[in-house]
């Protein structure tokens, strides 16, 4: 298989709430899922208010001891929102620190969300602001050799990220497609998102845009919500997306983000077993 498969710590975050599991125990659990890597999310990184180098290095050792690589570090920062809530400088300073943390952790990739929910800021304005922002931080990303994956999971963001990619022309900025942007309209799961207080009028992004993203992406976020009796995930056009992936002849780093455990979907299911279904799903489709 050309691609690699990792599991985001998000997939089994309920273990922290329901079973009091430590992040170290969760790493060991992921080590038994038959995957290549862990995708660390901000929730579990010892970097509040600033990095605890000793603890971060211990996390890295535990990951390696579990036989896993680190796929990426995901930081919970919507850049445009950060700029408008605070300042351009503060957003840059924080992001540069995230780049340094990622480099010190030994991971090639840093991902962060592109949400388009800043009040009064259109997607067009967001593009301009982000262009200016990345012009400042990409030299740092290059210096530290960390590739940024801009997680595109919301309507309009794949197009915007591709525009940025075209303008920046840097191997250190890449779109990071998240299956959520391509979610199909179904009756069983709503299209609400926690960062928006109003309802969404979601339309799935086209497969053509997915193919355009594949030309530049390195990391993919396989958002998975609920499996059917055959182990398929009917809320996303999985077959078409994986066909497009296989047609490129390239490998990608997939991070499984099983999210069916949230209170809005099926919190009663075992998140480890459901995440394993996601692993098996991707292994069936990827060449």
């Amino acid at each position: 298989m050309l691609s690699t498969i990792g599991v985001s710590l998000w997939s089994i975050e309920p273990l922290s709430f329901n079973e009091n599991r430590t992040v170290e125990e969760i790493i060991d659990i992921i080590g038994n899922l038959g995957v290549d890597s862990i995708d660390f999310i901000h929730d579990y990184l010892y970097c509040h208010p600033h990095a605890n180098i000793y603890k971060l290095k211990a996390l890295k050792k535990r990951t390696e001891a579990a036989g896993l690589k680190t796929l990426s570090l995901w930081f919970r920062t919507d850049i445009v929102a950060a700029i408008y809530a605070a300042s351009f400088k503060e957003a840059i300073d924080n992001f540069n620190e995230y780049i340094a943390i990622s480099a010190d952790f030994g991971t090639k990739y840093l991902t962060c969300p592109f949400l388009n929910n800043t009040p009064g800021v259109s997607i067009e304005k967001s593009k301009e602001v982000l262009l200016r922002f990345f012009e400042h931080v990409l030299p740092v990303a290059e210096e530290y050799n960390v590739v940024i994956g801009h997680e595109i999971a919301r309507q309009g963001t794949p197009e915007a990220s591709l525009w940025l990619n075209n303008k920046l022309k840097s191997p250190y900025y890449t779109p990071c497609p998240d299956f959520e942007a391509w979610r199909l309209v179904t009756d069983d799961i709503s299209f609400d998102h926690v960062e928006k207080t109003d309802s969404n009028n979601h339309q799935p992004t086209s497969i053509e845009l997915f193919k355009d993203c594949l030309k530049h992406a390195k990391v993919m976020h396989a958002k998975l919500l609920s499996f059917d009796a055959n182990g398929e995930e009917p809320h996303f056009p999985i077959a078409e997306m994986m066909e497009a992936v296989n047609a490129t002849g390239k490998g990608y780093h997939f991070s499984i983000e099983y999210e069916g455990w949230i209170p809005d979907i099926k919190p009663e299911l075992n998140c480890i077993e459901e995440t394993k279904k996601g692993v098996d799903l991707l292994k069936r489709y990827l060449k």
Partner: protein
Amino acid sequence: MPAGKSILIKEGMISSYIKNYDIDHDGITDHYGFMIRNQILHPCSPIGCMRCFSIMVNDIEIDSNKAFFVLRGQWININKVSTIKEIFWNIGEEAMVLVQQQDGMKSGEYEVKCLITFTTLVESRIIDSRDIFPKRVEVLSSKLTVSDRVEEIC
């Protein structure tokens, strides 16, 4: 960022008991309190992400000047939680809510509600000081019984 409308897992977030405390160690009960566990989804923001925090006991709102969010021994008046950008509440970590009240709480069962208003700003180092982002209100509710022991906090 998650789908849906839930930003926390409510079940089990508030402890099932209220304890009385003698904070100044003078032999007189002066506070009562309960534990609250961080079950916020993606809990990597400063506690200032809670833009408003209020407490009700048996549908009566507690005087916010006498109520405190206590995290790792750090006392923060619930009116001021929204100003904090450098204290982080870790995933699964327990904090205390302490209310100053002479003689604490009498024995019995009480319905306790925590009304917490969260920002929709998705950020982990910056708080929405100017409240430009919409907010979500979450209500945590639980029936708590008073423990017989009077505790001290070191």
